[in-house]
Protein backbone atom coordinates (compact mmCIF):
# COMPACT_ATOMS: atom_id res chain seq x y z
CA UNK A 1 0.00 0.00 0.00
CA UNK A 2 1.67 3.22 1.00
CA UNK A 3 5.43 3.10 1.31
CA UNK A 4 6.82 4.55 4.50
CA UNK A 5 8.90 6.98 2.52
CA UNK A 6 5.74 8.79 1.45
CA UNK A 7 4.98 9.57 5.06
CA UNK A 8 8.51 10.82 5.43
CA UNK A 9 8.16 13.06 2.40
CA UNK A 10 4.90 14.45 3.68
CA UNK A 11 6.48 15.03 7.03
CA UNK A 12 9.50 16.81 5.66
CA UNK A 13 7.31 18.89 3.42
CA UNK A 14 5.30 20.09 6.39
CA UNK A 15 8.46 20.61 8.37
CA UNK A 16 10.02 22.73 5.65
CA UNK A 17 6.88 24.81 5.33
CA UNK A 18 6.98 25.34 9.08
CA UNK A 19 10.60 26.44 8.87
CA UNK A 20 9.72 28.85 6.08
CA UNK A 21 7.01 30.30 8.25
CA UNK A 22 9.33 30.74 11.19
CA UNK A 23 12.13 32.41 9.28
CA UNK A 24 10.11 34.66 6.99
CA UNK A 25 7.04 35.87 8.86
CA UNK A 26 6.99 38.89 11.15
CA UNK A 27 3.87 38.17 13.16
CA UNK A 28 4.87 36.30 16.31
CA UNK A 29 1.60 34.40 16.51
CA UNK A 30 2.13 33.01 13.03
CA UNK A 31 5.71 32.13 13.95
CA UNK A 32 4.38 30.22 16.93
CA UNK A 33 1.85 28.48 14.73
CA UNK A 34 4.60 27.51 12.29
CA UNK A 35 6.47 25.93 15.17
CA UNK A 36 3.37 23.89 15.93
CA UNK A 37 3.37 22.82 12.31
CA UNK A 38 6.96 21.62 12.62
CA UNK A 39 6.22 19.65 15.76
CA UNK A 40 3.29 18.13 13.98
CA UNK A 41 5.47 17.05 11.08
CA UNK A 42 7.74 15.29 13.53
CA UNK A 43 4.76 13.39 14.90
CA UNK A 44 3.91 11.99 11.49
CA UNK A 45 7.44 10.68 11.26
CA UNK A 46 7.30 9.11 14.66
CA UNK A 47 4.04 7.34 14.01
CA UNK A 48 5.08 6.15 10.56
CA UNK A 49 8.28 4.68 11.94
CA UNK A 50 6.41 3.18 14.82
CA UNK A 51 4.28 1.30 12.34
CA UNK A 52 7.28 0.28 10.31
CA UNK A 53 9.20 -1.03 13.28
CA UNK A 54 6.12 -2.43 14.94
CA UNK A 55 6.35 -0.92 18.38
CA UNK A 56 4.28 1.55 20.34
CA UNK A 57 7.22 3.70 21.28
CA UNK A 58 6.74 6.09 18.42
CA UNK A 59 3.24 6.75 19.70
CA UNK A 60 4.54 7.40 23.17
CA UNK A 61 7.03 9.89 21.85
CA UNK A 62 4.36 11.54 19.75
CA UNK A 63 2.33 11.97 22.92
CA UNK A 64 5.31 13.56 24.59
CA UNK A 65 5.74 15.87 21.62
CA UNK A 66 2.10 16.93 21.87
CA UNK A 67 2.52 17.54 25.59
CA UNK A 68 5.52 19.64 24.80
CA UNK A 69 3.61 21.54 22.16
CA UNK A 70 0.87 22.30 24.66
CA UNK A 71 3.36 23.61 27.19
CA UNK A 72 5.12 25.62 24.54
CA UNK A 73 1.90 27.13 23.24
CA UNK A 74 0.77 28.12 26.71
CA UNK A 75 4.03 29.80 27.64
CA UNK A 76 4.52 31.25 24.17
CA UNK A 77 1.09 32.82 24.12
CA UNK A 78 1.62 34.10 27.64
CA UNK A 79 4.79 35.80 26.46
CA UNK A 80 2.97 37.20 23.45
CA UNK A 81 0.26 38.68 25.63
CA UNK A 82 2.83 40.21 27.97
CA UNK A 83 4.76 41.52 24.98
CA UNK A 84 1.68 42.95 23.36
CA UNK A 85 0.68 44.65 26.57
CA UNK A 86 4.05 46.36 26.86
CA UNK A 87 4.80 47.18 23.24
CA UNK A 88 1.40 47.16 21.56
CA UNK A 89 2.76 45.23 18.60
CA UNK A 90 2.92 41.69 17.37
CA UNK A 91 5.92 42.02 15.10
CA UNK A 92 8.74 39.64 15.82
CA UNK A 93 11.48 41.89 14.50
CA UNK A 94 10.55 44.50 17.06
CA UNK A 95 11.29 42.02 19.80
CA UNK A 96 14.85 43.23 19.92
CA UNK A 97 15.29 44.06 23.58
CA UNK A 98 16.21 41.43 26.11
CA UNK A 99 14.93 43.56 28.93
CA UNK A 100 12.28 46.21 28.90
Amino acid at each position, binding site marked *: *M*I*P*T*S*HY*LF*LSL*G*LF*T*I*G*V*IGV*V*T*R*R*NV*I*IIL*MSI*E*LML*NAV*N*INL*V*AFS*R*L*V*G*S*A*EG*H*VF*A*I*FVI*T*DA*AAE*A*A*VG*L*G*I*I*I*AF*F*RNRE*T*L*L*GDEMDLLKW
Partner: protein
Amino acid sequence: MLDQIVFYFFAALAVISALLVVTRRNVVQSAIFLITALLATAGIFLQLHAEFLFIVQVILYAGGIMVLFVFVIMLINLDVSIHQVQFNRQWWLGLLLALVLGAQLILAVALGRSGLPLGEPAPATALEPSTQLVGRVLFNEYMLPFEIASILLLVAMIGAVVMAKKKV
Protein backbone atom coordinates in the same frame (compact mmCIF):
# COMPACT_ATOMS: atom_id res chain seq x y z
CA MET B 1 -7.26 1.45 -2.59
CA LEU B 2 -9.30 3.25 0.02
CA ASP B 3 -6.18 3.51 2.08
CA GLN B 4 -4.37 5.32 -0.66
CA ILE B 5 -7.23 7.68 -1.37
CA VAL B 6 -7.41 8.56 2.29
CA PHE B 7 -3.70 9.07 2.64
CA TYR B 8 -3.17 11.22 -0.42
CA PHE B 9 -6.28 13.25 0.31
CA PHE B 10 -5.16 14.05 3.82
CA ALA B 11 -1.58 14.59 2.76
CA ALA B 12 -2.59 17.09 0.10
CA LEU B 13 -4.96 18.78 2.54
CA ALA B 14 -2.21 19.04 5.14
CA VAL B 15 0.35 20.48 2.74
CA ILE B 16 -2.02 22.98 1.18
CA SER B 17 -3.29 24.16 4.54
CA ALA B 18 0.24 24.40 5.84
CA LEU B 19 1.20 26.59 2.91
CA LEU B 20 -1.82 28.79 3.58
CA VAL B 21 -0.88 29.03 7.25
CA VAL B 22 2.43 30.65 6.46
CA THR B 23 1.16 32.86 3.67
CA ARG B 24 -2.16 34.26 4.93
CA ARG B 25 -2.27 37.89 5.91
CA ASN B 26 -5.04 37.51 8.44
CA VAL B 27 -3.96 35.65 11.56
CA VAL B 28 -7.41 34.20 12.17
CA GLN B 29 -7.40 32.64 8.74
CA SER B 30 -3.93 31.27 9.41
CA ALA B 31 -5.23 29.73 12.58
CA ILE B 32 -8.16 28.16 10.74
CA PHE B 33 -5.83 26.62 8.19
CA LEU B 34 -3.55 25.40 10.94
CA ILE B 35 -6.54 23.67 12.47
CA THR B 36 -7.26 22.11 9.10
CA ALA B 37 -3.66 20.97 8.79
CA LEU B 38 -3.74 19.48 12.26
CA LEU B 39 -7.00 17.67 11.56
CA ALA B 40 -5.57 16.37 8.29
CA THR B 41 -2.60 15.05 10.25
CA ALA B 42 -5.05 13.45 12.62
CA GLY B 43 -6.62 11.78 9.61
CA ILE B 44 -3.21 10.43 8.61
CA PHE B 45 -2.77 9.05 12.12
CA LEU B 46 -6.08 7.30 11.72
CA GLN B 47 -4.94 5.89 8.41
CA LEU B 48 -1.83 4.64 10.21
CA HIS B 49 -4.12 2.85 12.70
CA ALA B 50 -2.95 5.12 15.47
CA GLU B 51 -6.43 5.70 16.79
CA PHE B 52 -5.46 6.87 20.21
CA LEU B 53 -3.02 9.36 18.78
CA PHE B 54 -5.71 10.51 16.40
CA ILE B 55 -8.01 11.41 19.21
CA VAL B 56 -5.21 12.93 21.26
CA GLN B 57 -4.39 15.06 18.28
CA VAL B 58 -8.00 16.14 17.91
CA ILE B 59 -8.69 16.80 21.57
CA LEU B 60 -5.38 18.29 22.59
CA TYR B 61 -4.09 19.94 19.48
CA ALA B 62 -7.19 21.02 17.66
CA GLY B 63 -9.49 21.24 20.65
CA GLY B 64 -7.07 22.58 23.23
CA ILE B 65 -4.05 24.33 21.87
CA MET B 66 -5.79 25.88 18.91
CA VAL B 67 -8.65 27.16 21.06
CA LEU B 68 -5.97 28.86 23.10
CA PHE B 69 -4.48 30.34 19.96
CA VAL B 70 -7.79 31.60 18.66
CA PHE B 71 -8.60 32.97 22.08
CA VAL B 72 -5.37 34.95 22.25
CA ILE B 73 -5.75 36.17 18.69
CA MET B 74 -9.18 37.51 19.54
CA LEU B 75 -8.01 39.13 22.74
CA ILE B 76 -5.34 41.03 20.88
CA ASN B 77 -6.59 43.70 18.56
CA LEU B 78 -5.66 42.68 15.05
CA ASP B 79 -6.80 45.51 12.86
CA VAL B 80 -3.35 47.03 12.72
CA SER B 81 -1.33 43.97 11.95
CA ILE B 82 -3.26 43.10 8.80
CA HIS B 83 -2.01 46.21 7.11
CA GLN B 84 1.61 45.76 8.04
CA VAL B 85 4.31 44.18 5.91
CA GLN B 86 3.95 40.50 6.55
CA PHE B 87 7.40 39.20 5.72
CA ASN B 88 10.62 40.33 7.30
CA ARG B 89 13.55 41.82 5.47
CA GLN B 90 15.61 38.65 5.19
CA TRP B 91 12.71 36.62 3.91
CA TRP B 92 14.54 35.58 0.72
CA LEU B 93 17.53 34.37 2.73
CA GLY B 94 15.26 32.50 5.09
CA LEU B 95 13.35 30.95 2.23
CA LEU B 96 16.58 29.90 0.57
CA LEU B 97 17.93 28.32 3.73
CA ALA B 98 14.64 26.57 4.42
CA LEU B 99 14.62 25.13 0.92
CA VAL B 100 18.19 23.99 1.37
CA LEU B 101 17.12 22.31 4.58
CA GLY B 102 14.26 20.66 2.74
CA ALA B 103 16.63 19.41 0.07
CA GLN B 104 18.90 18.00 2.73
CA LEU B 105 16.01 16.19 4.32
CA ILE B 106 15.00 14.71 0.98
CA LEU B 107 18.55 13.59 0.52
CA ALA B 108 18.55 12.04 3.96
CA VAL B 109 15.44 10.06 3.19
CA ALA B 110 16.81 8.99 -0.14
CA LEU B 111 20.03 7.79 1.48
CA GLY B 112 18.11 6.17 4.29
CA ARG B 113 16.34 3.91 1.85
CA SER B 114 19.34 1.65 1.77
CA GLY B 115 19.33 1.06 5.52
CA LEU B 116 15.60 0.74 6.20
CA PRO B 117 12.80 -0.77 4.14
CA LEU B 118 11.37 2.66 3.48
CA GLY B 119 10.38 2.02 -0.07
CA GLU B 120 7.91 -0.69 0.78
CA PRO B 121 4.73 -0.38 2.78
CA ALA B 122 4.89 -1.38 6.40
CA PRO B 123 4.59 -5.14 6.80
CA ALA B 124 1.01 -6.25 7.09
CA THR B 125 1.89 -8.21 10.17
CA ALA B 126 3.17 -5.10 11.88
CA LEU B 127 1.42 -4.66 15.16
CA GLU B 128 -1.29 -2.10 15.30
CA PRO B 129 -0.76 -0.35 18.56
CA SER B 130 -4.01 -0.20 20.40
CA THR B 131 -4.89 2.16 23.19
CA GLN B 132 -4.06 -0.49 25.75
CA LEU B 133 -0.63 -1.08 24.28
CA VAL B 134 0.20 2.62 24.25
CA GLY B 135 -0.94 2.89 27.83
CA ARG B 136 1.10 -0.08 28.88
CA VAL B 137 4.28 1.22 27.26
CA LEU B 138 3.64 4.72 28.56
CA PHE B 139 3.16 3.66 32.15
CA ASN B 140 5.82 0.96 32.31
CA GLU B 141 8.88 1.81 30.27
CA TYR B 142 8.27 5.53 30.06
CA MET B 143 6.98 6.21 33.53
CA LEU B 144 9.72 8.68 34.42
CA PRO B 145 9.46 10.70 31.20
CA PHE B 146 5.71 10.73 31.69
CA GLU B 147 6.05 12.21 35.15
CA ILE B 148 8.61 14.68 33.89
CA ALA B 149 6.19 15.70 31.15
CA SER B 150 3.51 16.34 33.74
CA ILE B 151 5.93 18.51 35.71
CA LEU B 152 6.75 20.32 32.49
CA LEU B 153 3.06 21.03 32.02
CA LEU B 154 2.76 22.28 35.56
CA VAL B 155 5.73 24.58 35.10
CA ALA B 156 4.34 25.80 31.81
CA MET B 157 0.98 26.47 33.44
CA ILE B 158 2.55 28.51 36.21
CA GLY B 159 4.75 30.28 33.68
CA ALA B 160 1.80 31.15 31.47
CA VAL B 161 -0.20 32.46 34.42
CA VAL B 162 2.70 34.62 35.57
CA MET B 163 3.31 35.90 32.05
CA ALA B 164 -0.28 36.77 31.34
CA LYS B 165 -1.03 38.36 34.70
CA LYS B 166 -1.82 42.00 34.42
CA LYS B 167 0.68 43.50 36.76
CA VAL B 168 3.64 41.36 37.69
